[in-house]
């Protein structure tokens, strides 16, 4: 048996060493009257080169305001995967990012998996993370009750909460990286959603900023001695970001015809921008290994938002192609609130995405691809610049957008 198995094991081992599980748990402690964060960082032996930075990473996650992260107008990001697009030829494995935010009453968890695996099931990941924060809250409730009855002291109480979270995080790490749970499988969130629209974004990569690892100040050119002028911390190259140029949409008539549609074209753009990794989280991740993370562009692959206070979801799935630092992103959107709109279910979106990726490989134009796909009767809007989308009122409604085509 063995040589094969050994090789396989060696690869798995290598992947594991390039993988990290991070969780930051935030609870409101009634007896102490304050909010406190518990960061837990596991794995990543090969990813972390400078151990002294690890305490900075911990600090970064400890300082996050988790409660307000990803809060949109009336929706909130639950879980997302980000695929790595390296701007530099690395000799080793490139980690992707998976992110969740979940809460149980007033205990919040921000979870991050950094791993070269590209098949982490984000719906399962969300489910497990929800289990962790719920169990953490259970231990918190029990130990607080024991503390109030004078059975245990305050440090013991905190230790027990931390132990529950750390044990469960270690278990999750073990399940993902050793016994291969939470990988692949069906990724359908609780509620059926409907294929609503496709958004196409043209973007170029902007990669010339510098950032202070200590305080996060951004510089547009490298300061003297790479020292931050405000805090004296080390300044490194900042991670690359997208600069969006043009936008276009493909959408069905029903979006323009029905007045109860609450999502405008601009809302979808906002949603996509919101799905990017927040700067504070990016900074914390950057500290893990400034060299690696300053050369990787993370693009949202799949993002699931939840409408506040309901089980409704918006599900974004994106594909992209690139040429000379210019990216074209295709974002398929499905939304569970559009139930009575006679739209195709979420599975049709997957069918379209498959056609799209095949078509792009064959270098077909968007029109050609759409014409042969399940959305052949949808409206295709030619690209408009972002500033135009913002300033021209006729682009603020689906009906207005559709008129552009008709003109």
């Amino acid at each position, binding site marked *: 048996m063995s040589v094969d198995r050994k090789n396989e094991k060696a690869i798995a081992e290598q992947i594991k060493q390039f993988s990290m599980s991070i969780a930051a748990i935030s609870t409101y402690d009634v007896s102490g009257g304050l909010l406190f964060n518990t960061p837990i960082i596991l794995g990543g032996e090969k990813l972390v080169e400078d151990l002294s930075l690890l305490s900075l990473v911990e600090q970064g996650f400890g300082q996050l305001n988790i409660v307000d992260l990803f809060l949109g107008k009336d929706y909130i990001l639950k879980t997302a995967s980000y695929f790595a697009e390296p701007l530099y030829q690395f000799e080793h494995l490139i980690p992707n990012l998976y992110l969740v935010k979940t809460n149980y009453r007033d205990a919040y968890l921000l979870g991050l998996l950094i791993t070269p695996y590209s098949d982490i099931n984000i719906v399962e990941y969300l489910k497990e993370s929800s*289990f962790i924060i719920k169990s953490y809250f259970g231990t918190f409730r029990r130990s607080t009750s024991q503390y109030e009855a004078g059975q245990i002291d305050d440090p013991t109480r905190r230790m027990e909460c931390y132990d529950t979270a750390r044990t469960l995080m270690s278990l999750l790490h073990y399940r993902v990286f050793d016994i291969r749970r939470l990988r692949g499988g069906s990724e359908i969130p609780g509620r059926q959603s409907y294929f609503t629209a496709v958004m196409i974004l043209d973007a170029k990569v902007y990669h010339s900023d510098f950032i202070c690892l200590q305080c996060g100040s951004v510089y547009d050119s490298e300061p003297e001695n790479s020292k931050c002028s405000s805090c004296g911390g080390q300044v490194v190259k900042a991670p690359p970001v997208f600069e969006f140029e043009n936008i276009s949409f493909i959408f069905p008539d029903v979006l323009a015809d029905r007045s109860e549609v609450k999502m405008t074209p601009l809302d979808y753009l906002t949603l996509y921008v919101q799905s990017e990794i927040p700067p504070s989280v990016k900074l914390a991740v950057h500290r893990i290994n400034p060299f690696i993370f300053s050369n990787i562009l993370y693009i949202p692959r799949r993002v699931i938002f939840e409408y506040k206070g309901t089980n409704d979801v918006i599900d974004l799935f994106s594909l992209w192609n690139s040429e000379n630092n210019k990216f074209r992103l295709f974002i398929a959107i499905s939304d569970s609130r559009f139930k009575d709109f006679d739209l195709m279910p979420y599975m049709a979106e997957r069918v379209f995405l498959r056609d799209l990726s095949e078509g792009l490989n064959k270098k077909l134009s968007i029109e050609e691809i759409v014409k042969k796909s399940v959305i052949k009767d949808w409206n295709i809007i030619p690209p408009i610049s972002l500033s135009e989308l913002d300033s021209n009122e006729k682009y603020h409604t689906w009906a207005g957008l559709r008129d552009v085509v008709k003109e």
Partner: protein
Amino acid sequence: MLSKNSSEFLEKLIEELRRKSMSLPSQLERITRVNPQIETLARKVQLNFKTDDESKKIIAALYHLMRLNEVIDEQYGFEDFVKDINILFEILLPKSSVLTKDTVFQISDLYLKLFLDSAIISYATFIRLINEKGKELSDNVIKALLIREEILDTFLLIISSFEDLNRDLDLRFFVAAVRYRFLYSLYRMKRSIEQRKIEEWKRGREGKEWLRIVGDEPPKLVDIELRPIHKIYEEIKKEYPIRSGDDVFYDILFFEIISPIYDIMVKIAADAIQEKRKEIASLTSSGLSLQRQIAARTEFKADETSMPRMNLELMIDSAFRITGELTERNKSAIRHTIDTLLRRRMLKLYGQLYIPDMSKLLDVAFEEVYHLLLSEPYIALSVLSPEEINIFMENPKEYVKSKRNTLWELFKRKFRAYVGVNISYFTIAEALVKIIDEALQRYNRIFKHK
């Protein structure tokens, strides 16, 4: 003993338990009919609820059924049982309710199911512990894993089955019942392992009477105290202040079920864990030892396998050098010969045709392939990549001699692809025929085109 037959044992057990849980009311009624002592027992039933004699009989019959089928241990007292039932009713029903026969049936059914489900997960948990304890995991993570993957889902089902009667349950009673059943399962396992050990010990002592003088005691694994559920419940109530809420499921299972029994499980499973550790250690080192075996193997030795081997070489030689093809008849002959060859080799190596780890058969099969390669190196054509073929063609014989480890890997991969998970003499023979045929096709393409 535990690790090898454990899954089979578990399946049987589950089946037996399922059978026992069928149509409870009729079973209980039959028990009442055929056992006159049920009436006497029923008279001793004291409940904190208004009820009729019929309901009392059902409770007495349930006790009888559970004892008879070893759902609870043989020492479990009837009074203790009634105390448990009283607590259960108090948790599930409003204080002033009148117990009817139907309610008692319904609750009895759920209660019995709780024990059967707990029994099943207790064995599954035990076996999982053996598998995980051999790896380098902290005890806390193992405990969490057992909860998450073996216990939690069933526990949720148990709780939700009772929640139909009352939304606000005192979890601690159910935890006590599950803990009891875990301990009882462990008690039974311990008893049978201990008995086996004692017999071994006795055999070892035969004719050595002097051992008694030096104080040689029979082996003992661990002490397990089986206490009635209501007592466990009282104890948990003192320790664990929270009575309900689905957020505490993990916490309560961790502190009140897994933690109290973990050390007991580890002690009972000690031998099996040791075995598992060795298995894991040997897996990591077997790569090296196999390479050493191959390197150490000397020249072809005549034995009972030499005749089929020569036949095989002849057949393959004629296909490559003379006919240029494998007819269906050749193929079937090759298949047959390989089958015979492998069987003989396996018998010689392991003394039996079917060993638990049939993947060893692949190793044997490769050794045979290697023999064939020494006489007919062109068989390697079926596994080599185009670049490798160029190197190979310069000196096929030398290539085979110098690169046996590489070839070994390549053939192994090929075998895996052709054989899949179903490793048998037939599938391997079939795969080898395909490999030889493929090599022949490539050989023809290279040489006939010239």
